[in-house]
């Protein structure tokens, strides 16, 4: 027999089972209405739960995106000071984050879909429950117990199919949010423990430390060059410097080059100083 027909028969069989249990059909109308209201509450809670999970994933995505942007900036900074090794390191970490982000994005889409689905289910059920309530009052007011039976069966069959459908939708959404919750919880724990931070930027953000150190030494170089420039221009200071330099047995320009060479030795291949140096011939 056809799948569509069999599924509809399964729904009908369930409904009939409930109808068979009813003794006074009119009394059970109220009971059924109560069940419908409870289900409506449940589906609304379901919508809220899915929305909460979705927001949590959204928050995690924002955090990871910020970290990813930071790594991107670090890669640029590193390249601008000629440190391709650091830039590569930052981009490798960024790629790791990106795969986490992609997974979160899939979760987000799934939850969004469930939320829409449940919201629709909630609206449809609400319309039918409202319609059932009106019908129930009419049936109670107008018909004797015996007469009411057929009409109650009709109304009940109509709504119980919807209830079955909504019940399945809630079940499905619960399963999905449960899976997502478990994953989100694991990710939150990783973030809280600093493990993700370490993955993103290394212990104590080593890339940033290196960039800061290089930035600082770059500033010092510039400052040094400026000072040397100033000293090299004034006549009085030149005498002082000249006497100091002759005491050391070296000319001022040579002294500057020595300082520079010493710095370069420490900080790998640094770029040439931005300002022309006195005595550099540039």
């Amino acid at each position, binding site marked *: 027999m056809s799948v*569509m027909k069999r599924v509809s028969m399964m729904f009908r069989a369930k409904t009939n089972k409930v109808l068979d249990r009813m003794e006074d059909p009119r009394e059970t109308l109220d009971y059924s209405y109560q069940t419908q209201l409870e289900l409506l509450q449940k589906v609304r809670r379901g919508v809220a739960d899915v929305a909460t999970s979705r927001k949590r994933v959204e928050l995690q995505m924002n955090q990871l995106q910020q970290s990813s942007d930071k790594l991107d900036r670090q890669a640029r900074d590193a390249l601008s000071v000629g440190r391709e090794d650091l830039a590569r390191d930052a981009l490798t970490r960024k790629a790791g984050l990106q795969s986490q982000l992609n997974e979160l994005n899939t979760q987000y889409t799934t939850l969004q879909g469930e939320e829409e689905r449940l919201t629709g289910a909630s609206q449809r059920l609400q319309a039918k429950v409202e319609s059932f309530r009106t019908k129930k009052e009419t049936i109670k007011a107008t018909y004797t117990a015996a007469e009411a039976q057929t009409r109650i069966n009709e109304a009940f*069959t*109509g709504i119980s*199919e919807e209830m079955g459908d909504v019940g399945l*939708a809630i079940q*499905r959404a619960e399963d999905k949010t449960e899976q997502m919750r478990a994953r989100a919880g694991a990710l939150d724990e990783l973030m809280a423990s600093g493990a993700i931070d370490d993955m993103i930027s290394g212990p104590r953000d080593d890339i940033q430390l290196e960039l800061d150190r290089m930035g600082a030494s770059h500033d010092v170089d510039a400052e040094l060059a400026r000072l040397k420039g100033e000293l090299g221009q004034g006549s009085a200071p030149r005498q002082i410097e000249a006497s100091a330099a002759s005491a050391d047995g070296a000319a001022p320009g040579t002294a500057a080059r020595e300082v520079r060479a010493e710095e370069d030795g420490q900080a790998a291949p640094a770029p040439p100083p931005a300002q022309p140096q006195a005595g550099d011939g540039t």
Partner: protein
Amino acid sequence: MIVRILGEGQLHVDDSAAHELNELDVKLEAAVERNDESSFRPVLDELLARVRAIGRPVEPAALEPSELILPGEGATMEDVRKLLAGDGLIPG
């Protein structure tokens, strides 16, 4: 006739479409019987697409049972088996 797509609601479908839908349904059933998930999915998708294309939504307040009920979008064969076993369909 009224056809329900689980998770989407009910649609009025012209009786003249019954034959066409039935042909697809036969394929769907065959896939379930052969336990053939790879042909189950496209047939279900086609069936859903056809019903959506030719159906008109039933007004939400209507209290009418459906003649045919289709598994929802993304349903697996396992889901269909559970549906046919009828477990936990109707709360209360």
